[in-house]
């Protein structure tokens, strides 16, 4: 069981795409998964309805009577995994969703604003772990990076900057591919429909790293 929160106080960083892909990968692996959509645009439910294999995925949304922590507790009685997608801003939900998580993923593109906001999000995740008095695994996922073999200078620079503040950056980056942009129009999810494709291999590798982070977090909890 894992609660995975995608958080970044800057919008357009790749949170929702990564959340959609994570749900699809969990379904591809036969896991029970639900999603909590904290983005008022409600992209998750609409997208899952378009993909036959994902139509059964329960997508919860909060109301004034059904708060985030209560909703997640309720979902956790029925599902092994919960994926939380936050709004792309520093909202009143950000730390709540982090405090519930086993893993916080901070997607970051390569601009200076992404870096600055990514670091702020990383620090909020540390604070959430302190408030909830338990370790929360976390990682920065570089998104929309060059899908080619050569790593651009800016990507290496960004990795150094995150390292400078003690943030762990996933070794695999979420490459910039047309497949991810087309996904919401075509309902074709590479790792669900064509697992041998390069895009699928890329996300499966990201997913495996996320699972390893959760596992290391679980070991930390066991050791505490």
């Amino acid at each position, binding site marked *: 069981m894992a609660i995975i929160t995608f958080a970044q106080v800057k919008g357009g960083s790749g949170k929702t795409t990564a959340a959609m892909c994570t749900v699809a990968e969990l379904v591809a692996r036969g*896991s029970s998964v639900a999603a909590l959509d904290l983005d008022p645009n409600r992209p998750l439910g609409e997208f899952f309805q378009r993909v036959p294999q994902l139509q059964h995925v329960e997508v919860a949304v909060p109301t004034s009577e059904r708060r985030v922590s209560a909703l997640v507790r309720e979902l956790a*009685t029925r599902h092994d995994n919960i994926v939380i997608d936050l*709004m792309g801003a520093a909202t009143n939900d950000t730390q*709540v969703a982090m405090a519930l998580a086993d893993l916080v993923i901070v997607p970051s593109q390569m601009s200076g604003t992404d870096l600055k906001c990514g670091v702020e999000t990383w620090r909020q995740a540390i604070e959430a772990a302190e408030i909830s008095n338990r370790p929360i695994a976390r990682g920065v996922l570089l998104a929309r990076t060059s899908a080619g073999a050569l790593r651009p200078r800016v990507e290496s620079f960004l990795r150094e900057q995150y390292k400078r503040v003690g943030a762990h950056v996933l070794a695999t980056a979420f490459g910039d591919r047309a497949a991810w942009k087309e996904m919401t129009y075509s309902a074709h999810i590479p790792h669900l429909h064509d697992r041998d494709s390069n895009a699928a291999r890329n996300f499966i590798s990201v997913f495996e790293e996320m699972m390893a982070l959760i596992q290391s977090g679980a070991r930390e909890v066991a050791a505490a």
Partner: protein
Amino acid sequence: MATRNRRPELEPPDLSPSTRQSSRTPPRINADDPRFAAAAQLETHDAYVRGVQEGRVRVVNPDTLPRRPDQQDEAPPRRRSPESSLSTKVPESVMQQLRRRYAETGVTIRNQILIALRKEGLEINEDDIQDERKRPRR
């Protein structure tokens, strides 16, 4: 002349990625896990005000904005639609699960059924999924 026994052909094993969930995945989270109480502390009005003052909260999600303590007794929205009574029989095991879930989450059996029906595509107004028992008596 004796024929030499031919060695059996070597069969390549299935090396396709496993589609089963990893056995390393931690078990399902208990409903009384302390994380839920910790997160609920962050959903109070005080925590929200502190977040704004300290710069952690710069945008409000109207769906989840905590009410001020003096608003706590305000009546939730009333159910809008006229209601009909429905009586039916379900397997005892289903009833037990509905009761257990009510005990765990506070979501009434009526609302559990309406939420499930809405998920199946029936049009149900959010205002009609209200626990009227929480309304203050006048």
